[in-house]
Each structure stands twice: as structure tokens, then as C-alpha cells.
């Protein structure tokens, strides 16, 4: 007996397809929802049923709680999977499902709300004994300033309490510059937010971004599936993730896992969640908890041989957690974004050709299809390439091999940058941090320059020669026609033993 009869998948793109795949394997029907632009999207075509929501703006479709929950009710769904993004961390959506008698495949609204408020989240984490970046959480004033900085240890950061977007932040490396920086930070905070409160925190140097995958059931069970290292980022967006993290000892992993599980227990968590940490100098500090399935969850799935969406669905239906298998080997994910690799500008267009990597240890999660139009309405992530190998070196080599096999024509992708990151000495050595992408050349490598220029000339030669051949054929009236075997194939299909 499947745990649910029918699940509404309140998302689009690769994650909607991801959920549909597992539901289908579990014998559960799925209902896709779609905006105008997504009428022929793969998630619509692969679901059992599809409901049109409205216009292309997320607010008119995927973000409209009323429309989404109504679609779930009208199509007879007994559960809703929010994916990531959109309504996945929206406590009102979770509450609306609850009110409609539909199981929201995520944590209870209170847990979403608690972790969504960053101040509250830090408070709960601290109470649960989860290490935070040391500092003074409240407004710091001039008299206490120097003592606080000394206590936390230099370098320190002064941050606007009402801040965001990097404004009102000052890094201070020693006591000498402290006071001046404090006044500047206050002034900047006042100017930017109309609020001059400033707080003080330890500045974590060369931080790595390491996160713990947790899963909780409704019977108090909480487990974790190891960690993921996500330090290859630009603009705070992850580009490459791997598991395990090369910098973690078994002891540290156990400590981080225990801390993440403690936090999940503290908020009465249910389902899949990720606790993000900064890791630096052999210590880890709580950053935030994402109360949903993460984009990079396949890294964990490949290493543990599990299906996390299946687990989400199972625990949502009240079943107990499955045992966590022993992890095996090493996994790496590369996000495939429709972006110019040199400028990071979004790249829009129609996908005219796709050639996907295959063979051992390669997984592709994407909603790409030939003819897809990449529009500015939604996220630029087209999909994810995930590989698994017996060890880190093999996984890196496999990922490089798969990236070379992957061909997408119609938009530019971020893959060349990921390729160069994977091939860099810094990444290969395993000792890297969130600054790695800034140190990598985004331009194509000079070593291939001669070859590329020759190949480009050859391409133009071929195009010209073909055009010449066509013109000659047209002049002689021979035409081109389909190739020989295709013709034969066509005859074959039409004639058998016709009377």
C-alpha cells in the first residue's frame, strides 16, 4: 500500500520532476501545477495529472498559496510536496495544508517559522548547545566595545543589527582600528537602514561551508546522513558540492551531526532539513537551518544509496525512519546554470540540442528537453550533474569526464567554470574555502587557444563547403534528400506484405 494516494507537487523544473519520479516509483499519483510558460514543461508531461495555475509571475502561480492548496483539494490530493524555493519555507503554506487536511511534506509551521527568523534561530541553536559564531548578539556600545572584541578575539566584524546585503559591515583586524571602524559602521548603518545599532561578531577567516543532512520522523526519531561541503560559491550561490568534506575528521563529523540533530529536536522537526555551518580552523559555527529538501541532496543520496524524497514521503505518512546505511565512496554535484561563464549574466534562449553524459557513476537531474525555452521568469538552474566514485580522486576525474560529455546548445552555461574549479590545484588538494571561485580564471584556458581558433576556422570552412555543395546540387537539380538508410527505414515502415 502506497503511503499516499496522490501528491500535489507545488514546484517546477528539476525538483518537481525529482519528486514525481520517486512518487511514481512508490505507486503514488502526482499532480503537477504550472504557469502559462510551463505548459509543456517536463514536470507537467511526466505527472499523472496537471492543473494550470495562472500567469508567469511566481506570485500569480507557484507562490499563490490559495491557488496551490485549492488545486490540491480539487484534484483529490492527500499530500503536498513543496520542493525547494517557492512555498517550501513558507509557514503559511504549511498551515494552509494542515487546515485543508493535506499533509505538507516538510516540518510543522512552527519549525519553519522558528528557523526562518534568523535571530530566533540563533537563540534556539544557542539554547540547544549548538556552537554559534562568538560575539555579542545585542547592540554593542562604546564602553563595552574593546572588552567585547578582546573576548571574541580578532579579527572581528561589526554588523548593522538591521542590516543586510553587506551594508554596514566592517572587518577589524586589531584594536588599533576598532573605534574608528565602530563609528563608520554606525554611520553607515544609520544611513542605510535608519537604525545605527551595531553588533559584534568574530570574523571567520577562510570559512568553509559545511552542512548536515538531517531527517526526522513523527515519533521523535532524528538521524543525519553525513555532511556536504558547499564552499564553491559565487554571490553566495553554490556551484559545486561534495560529500564527504575533505577537512572533516570522524570526530568533528559526529559532533556536527549531533549538534544538527539536537537543533532539529529542539524545534520538533519532521522530514528532511539541512543545518548549515561555517567551518574554519577546525571549528564549526551554526549559520542557519534550511527547512526543506536542499538542491544538493543527490550528493548525499549517491553516497548513502538512499532516496531522500522517499524518506520524506514515508515520514510524512507517519512511518518511522529507515536505518541509515553506511556511506560509500565520494560524490560531487555540479549545478548547471544558464549563465555566461565569463560574466555570470543569465543566458536566455531556446535549447536546440542536448547531449547528456552517461556511463558509470553519473546521474543527471534536470528538466531539460530539446525545444525548452529558458525564460527570465524563473531560476537560472537548468539541472544538476552528480557523480559518484570509489574515492575523491575518482569522483573528480569522473566529474571532469562527464562535464566534457555534457553539451547544451542554445544558452551558455556555468559548466566551464565548474570544470576549471574541479581541475584547480586548490580544489584537488581539498584545502579550499568559499573564496575559491574568486581565485579561478573565468575565461577559457589559454592552453586550448590555438586549438579553439583552428576549430573555429574549420567550422566556418565546413559551413562554407556545405553551402557550396548545396548550391551545386540545386544547380544540377539533384537536391540532397534524406540519407540512404533513413529512406530505407521509411520504406520498411510503410510496406510489409501489402495486399
Amino acid at each position, binding site marked *: 500500500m502506497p503511503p499516499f494516494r496522490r501528491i500535489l507537487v507545488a514546484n517546477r523544473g528539476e525538483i518537481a520532476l525529482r519528486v514525481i519520479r520517486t512518487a511514481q516509483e512508490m505507486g503514488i499519483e502526482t499532480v*503537477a501545477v504550472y504557469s502559462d510558460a510551463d*505548459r*509543456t514543461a517536463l514536470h*507537467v*508531461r*511526466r*505527472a*499523472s*495529472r*496537471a*492543473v494550470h495555475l495562472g500567469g508567469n509571475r511566481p506570485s500569480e502561480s507557484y507562490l499563490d498559496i490559495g491557488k496551490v492548496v485549492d488545486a490540491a483539494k480539487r*484534484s483529490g490530493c492527500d499530500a503536498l510536496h513543496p520542493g525547494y524555493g517557492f512555498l517550501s519555507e513558507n509557514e503559511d503554506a504549511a498551515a494552509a495544508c494542515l487546515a485543508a487536511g493535506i499533509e505538507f511534506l516538510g516540518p510543522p509551521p512552527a519549525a519553519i517559522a522558528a528557523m526562518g527568523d534568523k535571530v530566533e534561530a540563533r537563540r534556539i541553536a544557542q539554547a540547544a548547545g549548538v556552537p554559534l559564531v562568538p560575539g555579542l548578539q545585542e547592540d554593542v556600545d562604546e564602553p563595552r566595545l574593546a572588552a567585547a572584541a578582546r573576548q571574541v578575539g580578532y579579527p572581528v566584524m561589526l554588523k548593522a543589527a538591521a542590516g543586510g546585503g553587506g551594508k554596514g559591515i566592517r572587518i577589524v583586524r586589531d584594536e588599533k582600528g576598532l573605534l574608528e571602524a565602530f563609528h563608520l559602521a554606525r554611520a553607515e548603518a544609520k544611513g542605510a537602514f535608519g537604525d545605527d545599532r551595531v553588533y559584534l561578531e568574530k570574523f571567520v577567516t577562510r570559512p568553509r561551508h559545511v552542512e548536515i543532512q538531517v531527517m526526522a520522523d513523527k515519533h521523535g526519531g532524528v538521524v543525519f546522513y553525513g555532511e556536504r561541503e558547499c564552499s564553491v560559491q559565487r554571490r553566495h550561490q553554490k556551484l559545486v558540492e561534495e560529500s564527504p568534506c575533505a577537512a572533516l575528521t570522524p570526530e568533528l563529523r559526529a559532533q556536527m551531526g549531533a549538534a544538527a540533530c539536537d537543533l532539529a529536536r529542539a524545534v520538533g522537526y519532521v522530514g528532511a532539513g539541512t543545518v548549515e555551518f561555517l567551518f574554519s580552523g577546525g571549528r564549526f559555527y551554526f549559520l542557519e537551518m534550511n527547512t526543506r529538501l536542499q538542491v544538493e541532496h543527490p550528493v548525499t543520496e549517491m553516497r548513502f544509496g538512499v532516496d531522500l524524497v522517499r524518506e520524506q514521503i514515508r515520514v510524512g505518512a507517519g512511518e518511522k525512519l529507515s536505518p541509515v546505511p553506511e556511506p560509500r565512496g565520494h560524490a560531487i554535484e555540479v549545478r548547471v546554470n544558464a549563465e555566461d561563464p565569463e560574466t555570470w549574466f543569465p543566458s536566455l534562449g531556446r535549447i536546440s540540442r542536448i547531449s547528456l553524459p552517461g556511463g558509470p557513476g553519473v546521474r543527471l537531474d534536470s528538466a531539460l*528537453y*530539446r*525545444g*525548452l525555452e529558458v525564460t527570465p521568469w524563473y531560476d537560472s538552474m537548468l539541472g544538476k550533474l552528480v557523480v559518484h566514485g570509489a574515492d575523491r580522486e575518482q569522483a573528480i576525474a569522473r566529474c571532469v569526464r562527464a562535464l566534457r560529455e555534457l553539451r547544451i546548445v542554445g544558452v551558455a552555461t556555468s559548466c566551464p567554470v565548474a570544470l576549471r574549479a574541479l581541475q584547480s590545484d586548490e580544489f584537488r588538494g581539498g584545502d579550499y574555502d568559499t573564496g575559491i571561485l574568486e581565485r579561478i580564471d573565468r575565461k577559457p584556458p589559454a592552453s586550448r587557444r590555438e586549438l579553439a581558433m583552428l576549430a573555429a576556422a574549420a567550422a566556418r570552412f565546413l559551413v562554407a563547403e556545405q553551402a557550396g555543395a548545396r548550391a551545386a546540387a540545386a544547380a544540377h537539380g539533384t537536391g540532397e534528400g534524406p540519407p540512404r538508410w533513413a529512406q*530505407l*527505414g*521509411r*520504406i*520498411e*515502415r*510503410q*510496406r*510489409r*506484405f*501489402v*495486399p
Partner: protein
Amino acid sequence: MKYTTRFGGEQREFTIERHAEGLVARRGDVRHALDLALVGDGQTFSLLVDGQSYDVVAEVQGEQVTLQLLGERFVVHVEDEREHAAHAVAGHKQGGRRELRAAMPGIVVGVKAAPGDAVAEGQTLVVLEAMKMQNPLAAEAAGVVVRVLCKVGEPVSAGALLLELE
């Protein structure tokens, strides 16, 4: 437009029309709301039947539609009204001669019948080797062999006439 479809020995009629509220398919008293959208280049389309979703690949070659649907392959014969009427007239004129043609390119490795032989339905007439496999080509109906147009060892293209029956 009314379509006559044939598959696996069965025949069904569907009427498909575009109404103000959208596409509607009718078969007898049963009505289905259809939503039909072409994907990319015209061989794939998304079909919603009363909200149920199907991802369909269709190769339309004249009246023959080869479908890929839910992992299955269906070769369905579809006639529109005009074609159906034309066939009804032509049906009365069909003669008695039948042809055996090569279903694929290959090499003839066996000829199992000679002119004048009476053969039964399903009886192997010619064996064709292609892709390292021996492929028996059988009579679709009983008859008498009129002509044999191939011989052992000879390569033939797909569609080549191998044998005639009456």
C-alpha cells in the same frame, strides 16, 4: 473532424473539435476535455485528457501514427472523414495478388518456396539475414507462389520485392 482509428483488430471513431472552452473529443456519448500542446519540434506533444497528463511521441506518416506512450509503442491507423470515404470506394476494387517485400535491408539466406507452391498463412517463405540475425519472412495469408524474385546470397534493400503470391 471525425477520425476512424484502427488498432489490434478494433475500430473506433472519435470526433475532435475546437470549442470556445477548448478542445473536445467525443466517442458516442462520452465527452473528454482535451488540452493538446506541441513540444518543440512537432513529434512530441503534451496531451491532457480531463486533466490526466500524457507525454506522447507521435510519428505521423500519412494515415499511420506510431505512438510512444507510457513506455509502449502503438502503431495506429487513423483516417479522417475524407480518407475514410475514399477507402470505402477503393475497398471494392482490391485485387488478389500479394507481394512479399523485404522488411529490412539484408542478405537472402534462404528461399523456402518455388513458383507453383501452395503455402499456408504464417509459413516461412524467405529468410533474410540482417544484424547477425536470421529473420524469417512469412506469408500473411494462404496462397500460391507466382514468382520468386530473389535468390540465396543476394543482398536486398528494404522494401525490395522478393516474391509474389496469388
